[in-house]
């Protein structure tokens, strides 16, 4: 993996993470620290799966 592809991967993951974390903040009703921690972890899982799915589809 060259520096450029690593940068692209990081950008893709970060974009998904931000979008999904915002989605989590929209879903919940009251915000506190634990909600933020759980939301950040869930968004991280979602971002990893989003990238894995995108790579699996454009494999060929």
């Amino acid at each position, binding site marked *: 993996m060259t520096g450029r592809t690593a940068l692209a991967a990081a950008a893709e993951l970060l974009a998904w993470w931000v979008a999904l974390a915002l*989605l989590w*903040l*929209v*879903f919940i*009703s009251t915000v506190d620290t634990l909600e933020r921690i759980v939301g950040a972890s869930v968004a991280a899982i979602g971002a990893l799966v989003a990238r894995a799915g995108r790579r699996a589809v454009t494999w060929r």
Partner: protein
Amino acid sequence: MNGWILAATVLLAGGAGTALWGVATGPLSRRVVAQNLSTSVVCASLLLLAQGYDRTAYVDLGLLLAVLGPVGTLVFARLLAEDLTDDRAAAWGLTWTTVGVDAAVVVALCVAAGPGRAMVKLLVVGALLIGGNLVASRALSGGFQGVRGG
């Protein structure tokens, strides 16, 4: 009984009743279209019921259906693709009518909710519902080509 519940009742009796009639009779192409439209109608009535009962937690039901309903239609579009190649299931007039109804319901609920987190959530549900409905309609009218074995 308030106006929201009345609207949900009318929508269910009219829209969902029509969808039930469409899915139980006629050629396969008509049945899958009716199945797709039933998702939109039921999801809109669930959102109206959440407002009518004044329970914001009930919006989660609409959210779930807006995410999973189009997926269910994609299941049929994909696994019935061979049967649907002969008569394409295209009913864009009906699709755009439902999209209009859904958009009207979501806008009315947003006005009732006022600006805030609840309004953004309603808009997300509406976007998922309308986008899913359109994509599912596209999938039904020849979205899957050459499904052999896969």
